[in-house]
Structure formats: C-alpha cells, structure tokens
C-alpha cells in the first residue's frame, strides 16, 4: 500500500475523533429544539431558523478570522513577556485557514471541532433572547462571538494560551482544564446569553407593575425532551473529541467519558425532577429538561477525569443549581430567559469547572499530590475569574455597541404578532388554530 493510497493506514485515535466530531451537530440540534420548544408557538419557525442561521454565520466567521485568532498549541502567537514568563495572548495564524492542511492531522481536527463548537456556543444566547431578538441582530451578535469573544478565550484554554500555561508558570496543577468545552463553549455562550437578556430586557407582559413575573410556558414539551435526548448523543461526541484533542486523553477513555456524561445528565435530571416536585408539588417538565442539559454542560469539564460516582455527584449539584438559578433570575433579578440558557450553560458550567478543581484526579504522578490538587483548584478559580471578569464585560460591551447600530430588540408590533409572522411572513404551524389570547395586548 503506497503512502498516498486512500486506504493508507490511519491513526485509530484520529479515526475515532472524526466519528466523535460527526456526532457534535446532534448537540446543536438538541439545543435548537429545546430553545424552540421553550419559546412561544408564534415564534417557533423563527427560533429554529435562527439556530441554523447562527450556526452558518459562526462557521463562516470562524473560517475567515476566528481560527486565525484561536490557533493551535505551539502555533504562531502574540505573546507578552512578564517576569520571565511568556504570556501567550492571541494566535497569529493566517486568515481563511491558509496554509493549513485539512488531512486528518490533530490541527485539522481542531479546526473542524472548533467550527462546530463555535456554532454550539452561538445557539446558546438564542435561548435567552427568545421571542424578541431580531434575526439580523442575532447574526451580527454571532459574528462578534465567533470572531472575537470565542477565539480569544479558546486560544487561552485550548491553544497553549496563558490559562493553559498556569501549571507550567505558576505550579497550578495542569493549568486551567476544560477538555469538553464547559468554559469555552457553554460559559462563554451563557454569559453572552446573560448580556443579551440584559440588553433586550424582558418580553412584554412578563413582569407586572409590582415586579411579579408571569409564567409564559414553552409551547412544545415534546421538542424539549426530544432535544434533550439528541443533545446526549452530541455531548458524548463533543466531550470525547475534546478530551482527545485538547487534554491528550487516550481514545479508549471515550467509554469512561460517555459513561460519565450519561450519569451526570441522568443524575442532574433526577435532581431537578425531585427538587421541582418538592417545591411546586408536581415535577416541572421544562426545568427537569433544563436540569438534564445542565448535567451535560457540567460533565464537559470533568468527564475524562472523574470516577463515575463523582460524575453522579457533579450531576446532582448541577441539577439543583439549574432550577434554583432559573427561579432566582426570574423572580429576584427580573432577567427574562425563556430558554434557561443562563442557568443551564453559565451557572451549571461554572459549577462543572469548579468541580474539576475539587474532584478531579489525574492519572499522571506529577499531578496527583496534595499541592497539585490545591494548585488545580486555584487554576480553575483563575479561569472562572477570567470568564466573569474578562469575557462577560467584553461580550456585554460588544453587544451594547452593536445595539447602538443594529437595534437588537424587535418592534413592539413584532412582539405582539410573533416573530414568525413579523420577520418571516409565515408561522411554524399554519394549519393549527391560533388561540385568540395569544394576540392579547400584554
């Protein structure tokens, strides 16, 4: 067999990685269905179309400029030398993926996974902006996410940036760890969702004059639950591919990763189920489904590094954080987040990152002592501080500026009609009867 033969021997890890990356779009499909189901019926077509559009915009922007700023570990980068340490700040790869061979090498697989990951991150804010976010503004905001926010943070974590180097420079364990994208994809997306919810303000009729929120339930629980099941498939692929490419985990660990991912989601879902049953008298389907996704989000950071029992613990805590956070944002902070994106992706994600520092045990002897455990915990705290102190103000400022030039919120009439009719000219369910109270002025 010649080396150029199409049937030349291929690295098993790379082959498995390709299979895992092929599963990632299921996570995007799951999130899109969940966001659509949690929104109103009169904005359903808009919600699902917006998901596809933001994935497209994110992929193109990532191709043009995103990857050139994210780069790969060991690639060309802009760095700042402080006290003898070279702080790797931003990649300096050519735009348009020039000079990169897309041949199954780790770098090419990172490009492919990055392109899908940034699309996944871009879908997350659609959950918090549901029923009131203009399509053009979604696209422009996604371009900012895929071109600026995501690649900068992804470089710091996944491409040999300063957060990844914390272990080398400051003896903080292995440096900030985020194998499956809990921080890079979900917390970045969740903090963008928070910025969008703040900038857009709540849906009309959501809050009464005395500040009490009205319940606006999702229109299709079947979409939500089916989306959860699809998301599990995608997450198993995402967590496995990320662990192989970004944490150097052996391909055989994919079994542990898939088991931990499933256990975390399952325990989170049951924790949400029990919590909502106790608090409200009956289990809440939407919050329980959000708990499931919260467990998946938390698992992304920890799945390769925990025994299954610890993954159950991580899931239980995530499953309790999600409904409490949803209620707190809704009741006490007047943040209208129809899809629960902030609680599911930011709050559960931050817990996952913290859990890695508290519970992870790395197989290599160099990172298994008490000092290494303390150092790893501090590295995770530094990563969390960077998300809250750098990513949140950055994404807020970018979207606030965008709002000055491209108004993000739909006009009052559009919100009354529903985004389907107002922005697309046709509804998602043309053969269904529309209840008259859907058009009541709130």
């Amino acid at each position, binding site marked *: 067999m010649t080396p150029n033969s199409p049937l030349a021997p291929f690295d098993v890890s790379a082959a498995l990685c390709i299979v895992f990356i092929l599963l990632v779009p299921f996570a995007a499909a799951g999130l899109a269905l969940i966001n659509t189901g949690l929104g109103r019926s009169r904005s359903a077509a808009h919600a699902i179309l917006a998901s596809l559009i933001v994935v497209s915009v994110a992929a193109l922007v990532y191709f043009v400029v995103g990857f050139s700023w994210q780069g790969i570990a060991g690639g060309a980068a802009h760095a700042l030398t*402080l*006290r003898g*340490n070279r702080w790797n700040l931003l990649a300096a790869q050519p735009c348009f993926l020039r000079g990169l061979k897309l041949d199954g090498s780790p770098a090419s697989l990172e490009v492919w996974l990055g392109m899908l990951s940034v699309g996944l991150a871009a879908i997350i804010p659609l959950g918090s902006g549901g029923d009131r976010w203009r399509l053009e503004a979604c696209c422009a905001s996604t371009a900012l996410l895929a071109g600026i926010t995501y690649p900068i943070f992804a470089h710091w974590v996944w491409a040999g940036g300063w957060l990844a180097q*914390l272990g080398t*420079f*400051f003896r903080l364990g292995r440096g900030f760890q985020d194998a499956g994208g809990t921080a890079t994809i979900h917390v970045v997306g969740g903090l963008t969702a928070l910025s969008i919810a*703040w900038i857009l*303000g*709540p849906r009309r009729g959501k*809050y*009464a*004059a005395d*500040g009490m929120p009205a319940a606006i339930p999702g229109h299709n629980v079947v979409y939500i639950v089916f989306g959860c099941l699809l998301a599990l498939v995608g997450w198993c692929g995402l967590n496995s591919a990320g662990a192989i490419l970004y944490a150097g985990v052996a391909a055989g660990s994919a079994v542990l990763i898939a088991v931990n991912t499933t256990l975390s989601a399952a325990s989170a879902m049951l924790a949400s189920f029990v919590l909502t049953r106790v608090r409200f008298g009956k289990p809440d389907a939407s919050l329980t489904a959000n708990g499931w996704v919260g467990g998946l989000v938390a698992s992304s950071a920890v799945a390769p590094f925990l025994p299954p029992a610890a993954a159950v613990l991580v899931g239980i805590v995530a499953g309790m954080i999600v409904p409490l956070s949803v209620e707190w944002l809704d009741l006490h*902070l*007047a*943040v209208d987040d129809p899809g629960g994106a902030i609680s599911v992706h930011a709050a559960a994600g931050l817990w996952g990152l913290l859990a890695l520092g508290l519970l992870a045990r790395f197989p290599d002897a160099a990172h298994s002592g008490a*000092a290494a455990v*303390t*150092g790893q915990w*501090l590295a995770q*705290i*530094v990563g*969390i*501080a*960077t998300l*809250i*102190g*750098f990513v*949140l*103000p950055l994404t*807020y*400022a970018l979207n606030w500026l965008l709002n000055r030039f491209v108004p993000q919120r739909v006009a009052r009439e559009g919100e009354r009609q529903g985004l389907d009719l107002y922005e697309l000219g046709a509804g998602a369910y043309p053969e269904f009867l529309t209840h008259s109270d859907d058009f009541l002025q709130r």
Partner: protein
Amino acid sequence: MKLAGLLLLPAGWLLVASALVLLAADTPRGVFVFAGLGVEVLGLVLVARAHLAETTESE
C-alpha cells in the same frame, strides 16, 4: 451604577492576573485571587441591580 459594576468586573480580573505575576508564595497568591473574584462578584451585583432597576422602571 451599571458602569461602575462593569468597570469592577475587569478590575477584579486584573487583580487576579496581578496576583499571579507579582506573588510567588502560594498563600498570598490564593488570597489575592479570591479577593479579585470578590471584586468581580461585587461588580456583577451592581450590574444586576442596575438592570433590575431599569426593568422595574420600564414596567
């Protein structure tokens, strides 16, 4: 209040980054990292309260 909160967020982060660069011993470095995180939480509270006030006024 919102602007002050938004400025406190990167201020806290710079405190964290400065602790890493300037402090070599583990304990003071950890203390300053947590202090920076505390400043960020304060900023987050201010931004959240500013938005809450805006929402209440608009309703």
